[in-house]
C-alpha cells in the first residue's frame, strides 16, 4: 500500500471510531476497492500515481467519509455523544447557578453555545451538533418572550394615544421579530429533517423546558418580577436538564433506531411526569395526559414533516 493511501486510511480510522472489528472490516473493504480502482484505471492508461489519487478523491475527505459511515452504522462515538450530552449539562449549570443574575456571564455562556453550534455547522453537522443547536434555539424563544413583553407593555399605551417614537420603534421591532424568530426555528428544523427527523427531534428537545420556564416567569410577573420566581424553579429545571443530558447520551449512543426513539420519548414523558408532580401536584391525570400528548406530538412532529417533505 502506498504512503498516500496508508495516510488516508490512517486519518479515516482516526475519525471512524466504530470499534476494532467493524473498523478492520471497513478498512479491508475500502483498501480492496482502491486496489481494484487503481487496476481498472491502469487498464485505461492512467498512471498509477494519478489512479491512486483519483481513487482516494472518490472517497472524499477522511473526516466526512468517517462521519457518513458512522451515520450509516447509526453509531455515535463516545467522544461525540459526550460532547452532545454536555450541551444540556451546560444548560443545567446555567440554570443551576442562576446565571440570569450575572448578565455578563450569561452573555458569555450564550456566546459559547452559539460558537459551538457554528463550529458544528462548519464541521458538517456531526451528531453532537444537534443538542447544542437545540440549546442555541432556546435563545430565539427567550428573545420572543422579550418581544412579547415589549408588545404587552407598549401596545396599550399606543392604543391610548401615546406617540412616543421609542415605544413605536419597540413595537415595530417586536412585531417584526415573531416571523423572523419563527423562520429561524422552522428553517433549523427543516434542515435537520432533511438528514434525519430524529436529529430534528433532538434539536427541539430543550424547547419545552425553556417554554415552561418562560411561562412560569410570565405568571410570576414577567421580566421585572419573574427572575425571582424563576429562581424558585431553578433546582427543578437543573434536574430536568441534567436528566436530559444523560438521556441524550443514551440516545446518541444507542445502536438501534427504535431504541433511540423509545429513549427520547420515554425520558421526555418521565421528566414531564416528575416536573408536574413537583410543580402542579393537583393538576389531575387528564391534564397530565394532555400535556404528555402535546409533548410527544411536538417531539415527533419532525417525523411527520419528513413523511410529507
Amino acid at each position, binding site marked *: 500500500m502506498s504512503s498516500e493511501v496508508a495516510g488516508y486510511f490512517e486519518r479515516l480510522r482516526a475519525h471512524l471510531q466504530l470499534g476494532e472489528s467493524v473498523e478492520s*472490516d*471497513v478498512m*479491508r*473493504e*475500502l483498501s*480492496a*476497492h482502491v*486496489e*481494484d*480502482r487503481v487496476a*481498472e484505471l491502469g487498464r485505461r492508461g492512467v498512471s498509477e500515481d494519478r489512479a491512486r489519487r483519483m*481513487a482516494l478523491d*472518490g*472517497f*472524499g475527505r477522511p473526516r*466526512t*467519509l468517517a462521519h*457518513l*459511515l458512522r*451515520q*450509516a*452504522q*447509526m453509531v455515535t462515538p463516545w467522544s461525540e455523544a459526550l460532547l452532545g450530552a454536555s450541551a444540556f449539562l451546560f444548560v443545567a449549570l446555567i440554570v443551576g447557578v442562576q446565571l440570569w443574575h450575572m448578565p455578563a456571564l450569561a452573555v458569555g455562556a450564550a456566546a459559547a453555545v452559539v460558537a459551538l453550534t457554528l463550529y458544528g455547522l462548519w464541521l458538517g453537522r456531526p451528531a453532537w451538533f444537534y443538542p447544542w443547536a437545540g440549546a442555541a434555539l432556546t435563545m430565539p424563544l427567550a428573545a420572543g418572550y422579550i418581544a412579547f413583553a415589549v408588545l404587552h407593555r407598549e401596545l396599550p399605551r399606543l392604543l391610548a394615544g401615546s406617540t412616543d417614537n421609542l415605544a413605536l420603534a419597540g413595537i415595530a421591532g417586536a412585531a417584526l421579530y415573531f416571523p423572523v424568530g419563527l423562520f429561524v426555528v422552522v428553517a433549523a428544523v427543516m434542515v435537520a429533517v432533511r438528514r434525519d427527523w430524529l436529529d430534528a427531534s433532538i434539536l427541539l428537545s430543550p424547547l419545552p423546558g425553556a417554554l415552561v420556564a418562560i411561562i412560569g416567569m410570565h405568571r410570576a410577573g414577567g421580566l421585572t418580577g419573574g427572575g425571582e420566581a424563576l429562581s424558585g424553579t431553578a433546582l427543578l429545571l437543573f434536574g430536568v436538564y441534567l436528566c436530559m443530558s444523560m438521556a441524550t447520551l443514551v440516545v446518541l449512543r444507542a445502536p438501534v433506531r427504535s431504541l433511540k426513539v423509545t429513549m427520547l420519548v420515554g425520558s421526555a414523558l418521565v421528566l414531564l411526569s416528575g416536573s408536574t408532580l413537583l410543580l402542579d401536584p393537583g393538576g389531575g391525570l387528564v391534564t397530565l395526559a394532555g400535556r404528555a400528548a402535546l409533548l410527544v406530538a411536538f417531539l415527533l412532529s419532525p417525523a411527520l414533516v419528513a413523511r410529507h417533505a
Partner: protein
Amino acid sequence: MVLGSYLTQLLKGNTDVLILSLLEREPMYGHQVMQELEQASAGFFQVSEGTMYPALYRMTREGFIRGRWTRLQTGQERKVYSLTKKGAQRLHECRSTWSGFAAAMNLVTTESR
C-alpha cells in the same frame, strides 16, 4: 437552477434503488457495483465511493442487502453483497413508486406538440 445539481439530487435520491436493482441481477462487490452502474447506464450514472459505501452499509444495517467475504476466482477476497428477501420487497415497492412518478413527470413535463 443548475442542471448538474438537479442531476446530483436525483442520483442521490435514487442511489439505493439503483444498487438494489444491480444486486437483483447478481451478487456484487463494491467496485463491481460502481462499474456495472456506469456500464448499464452507458456512462450516465457515476456514483462516487463516498456515496456508495455509506449507502451499502446503511442498506446492510436495514436488512435490504447482506455482505459476505468471498474468495473470487482470481484468488482475491472481496466483500460481496447480495439482495435479501426484504431488499427484494423494497425494490419492488420502489419500482412501483418510480413507475408512477416517471409517468406523472412525463405527463406534466412533456412538451405539447
